């Protein structure tokens, strides 16, 4: 088990270093000069040159990258160009807000997606299965920003049930109930794609498992159907469920980008949007890297859980 854990950890670190390089490279390939972005078009050439020196933009690419990587390992993501504050000071609270949104969306996507998937798979080709499939197709295809606008139009503007923007009522005192009210619509809008994907993948894995020999054996033994499904099929499907869910964490974060902008949810997606628009290189790098980190960590956690549950995985 430990060898497996170490191997997975090393692989995750490799992925992170690769991702950090791509993020850094990507921001360097985009045209435009950060020094001009800071000082504006009226700056003197001397001031621009001095700032480029200060920011280390005159150094070779790999030196810039290594300096950046070295600082980042120590938790220093640099200073935001647009906001002139340390990137971490902005990103950490935003990241927390995105986690709240992500947790809300997962709380909707996982149970509903799993139940639809299991029942569709079990009653394959039934009316329920077809309805579930159409629902999943809709969930996977509907553009999230469109859905977000429709939800706002119906549930906020027409029915007045939920607020349309932010995490708290800026005129009120806040509190958990206020947060929950603000969370509902963004979480629903963010949950659709992961919910649909979970439903479809779970369905596929249930169909596969229900055709396995051990299920046939269990039935042949005369076990009650409930026992077959819960004791054998679902238990064996659990590692796959965990894997499917962990993969969705990454998609949740990318989906949150759209909903955060529409609902003015002050999360990492909105910070990234503003940073891209303002050409705030350190902020973009920080936000993309943190998102990558979450994705990698979620998958690592899923691998660990799977290994703990399924001895076959550890052996490979």
């Amino acid at each position, binding site marked *: 088990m430990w060898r497996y854990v170490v191997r997975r950890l090393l692989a995750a670190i490799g992925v992170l270093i690769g991702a950090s390089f791509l993020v850094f490279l990507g921001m360097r390939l985009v045209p*435009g000069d950060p020094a001009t*972005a*800071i000082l504006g078009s*009226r700056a003197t050439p001397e001031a621009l040159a001095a700032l480029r020196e200060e920011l280390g933009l005159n150094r070779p690419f790999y030196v810039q990258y290594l300096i950046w990587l070295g600082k980042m390992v120590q938790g220093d993501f640099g200073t935001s160009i647009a906001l002139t504050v340390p990137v971490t000071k902005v990103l950490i609270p935003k990241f927390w807000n995105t986690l709240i949104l992500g947790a809300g969306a997962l709380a909707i996507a996982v149970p509903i997606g799993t139940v639809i998937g299991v029942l569709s798979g079990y009653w394959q080709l039934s009316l329920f299965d077809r309805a579930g499939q159409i629902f999943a197709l809709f969930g996977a295809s509907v553009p999230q920003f469109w859905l977000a606008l429709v939800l706002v139009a119906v549930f906020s503007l027409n029915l007045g049930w939920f607020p349309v923007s*932010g995490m708290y009522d800026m005129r009120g005192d806040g509190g958990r109930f206020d947060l929950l009210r603000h969370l509902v619509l963004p979480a629903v809008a963010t949950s659709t794609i992961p919910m649909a994907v979970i439903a479809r993948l779970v369905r596929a894995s249930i169909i596969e498992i229900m055709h396995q020999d051990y299920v046939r054996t269990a039935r042949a033994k005369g076990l009650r159907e409930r026992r077959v499904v819960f004791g054998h099929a679902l238990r064996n499907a659990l590692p796959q469920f965990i894997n499917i869910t962990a993969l969705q964490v990454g998609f949740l974060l990318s989906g949150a980008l759209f909903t955060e902008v529409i*609902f003015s949810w002050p999360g990492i997606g909105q910070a990234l949007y503003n940073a*891209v628009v303002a050409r705030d290189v350190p902020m973009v790098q920080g936000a993309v890297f943190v998102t990558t980190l979450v994705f990698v960590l979620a998958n690592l956690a899923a691998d660990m859980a799977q290994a703990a549950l399924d001895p076959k995985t550890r052996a490979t």
Partner: protein
Amino acid sequence: MVVRNADALAAMRSIHAHRLSRRRLLQAAGATAGAAALAGLGGPAPSMARVVQGEPKQGGTLIYAMESEADILDPQGASGWVTWRVHRHIFEPLINQDLSRSDVAQPPLIPGLAESWEMSPDGLSYTFKLRPGVTFHDGTPLDAEAAKFNIDRMMNPDFEFYNERAAAFTYFCWLATKEVQIVDPMTIRVVQNRPFGEFLNQMVQGTGGTGMISPAAIKQYGSDKVAEHPIGTGPFKFVERVQNEKIVLDRNESYWGHKPYVDRIIFRPMPEPAARVNALRAGEVDFIAVPPPDSIQSLVDAGYTLSIAETRNVPHIWYIHLNMKDPTLQDVRIRKAIQHAIDKEGMATSLLGDTVYRAEGLQAPGNLSFDPDFTIYPYDVDQAKALMAEAGHADGLDQQLVFQTSTAGSGQLLPVPMMEWIQRDLEQIGIKSKIDAFEWITYIGMWSDGVPDGVHGMQFSWGQSSGYWLDFTTNSANATPGCCNVGSYSNPKVDELLNAAFSELDDTKRADLYKQADKLIMEDAAFIPVVNDRAPYIMAPDVKGFVHAPEEAFDLTLVWLDR
């Protein structure tokens, strides 16, 4: 990707939604903005005419949804109108603009932190008598030391707290300034190395403002970190800023001037236009900037108040720099043909729902040098075709023209659909063109490098409530790299007029020189002025007292909430 989707969405809505009829818009604007514009009870201009909207009430929180996140809260080292609307409530310059009037061509200059000022007859020195008894929000007294400290921060490279960013953004204010002297504890003198007629007008511009920051705060937090602790003298005090979420200001109870009615203002960045409209409808914000043109009519129908400029007086021009080095465009007949071929009126009405006016000259409105009666190049396709034929291109150009623009950006309205409108119009006279659109910050960088070879025009939008703006956009001495004559336009006669205007101290004579220069520039057809924005704002029915001043900013001390 998100940016594109948001743009596409806004653009599509604008194109496909029902059009706002001009008459209805004007009616709505007349009923609401007119009243709002003239209200402003208790404002600093007691002589103005007013329409009373009831007795102003004290208290409440005003939430304003802005179209993008603000820049840093350093009034001297930040750019953009969005940020200036925040800054001018926290910080004040020596002299200020009276934004309590909408019926003026240019906001009048009024005493700010200086209660009076005097220019020497040769224009080489300005003496500012500071207002006694004013303190910064941290208790630091405003005196001559503090004022000199701030000006040195913007223009004296030898000063310990000199800030390059502040120097870059306030360059056009201090470019003729030699030094600042302390005359007595409450008097400073700004010594110029040459007369600069627009000096005082440049002092009140928002992109690179000269608002005064507490010297104690600059010393404590550092010249480049003070933006996190914005401490000025203004009518509101900074409370907190949560990036991408809110900037909170509270009323300054010990403010020297007219105290604001509202207790608190919250500025909320909401870059998605639909999100701003929805938040307004849901009552989560009171007041929004840049409503999508197609949303205005339905909001007005639902009882919201539209405030929009009723005359061409907001300092904004959406225009194209033509590449004057390009062989094809060196023929003035082709440039003139292009001007005649564009249906600006149609664009203003159909595409932008009458939220803009057709532009005539290049000079931006909102200043005395703008000539509202100037007209040239009416929409006339026959005339355009005749000019093309005269230039030997009766069957059209055999080359494709390339125009560059941005996908979005401050003051850019709907850049891509607007450029497509122009593209379609140019086809009528046999000019095929291609549009390259870039992300805004990238585009600003490209723009300041100048129009490259092979590109025929670059679109941009800005303006100032100072006639000097025309100089840095068209004077050959300001050709790129540098700022901001990016199409390398050069006409010695224009330069002569602009240079004469620079040192002309008489406001009327100077304005006249700028008007003459603008006329020559337009006869050269070196720029295509397209539209002037009317800067629409929409507010909840209980927001009262708002004045639509001829500026890209507003004075929220005049606003009160009828709750």
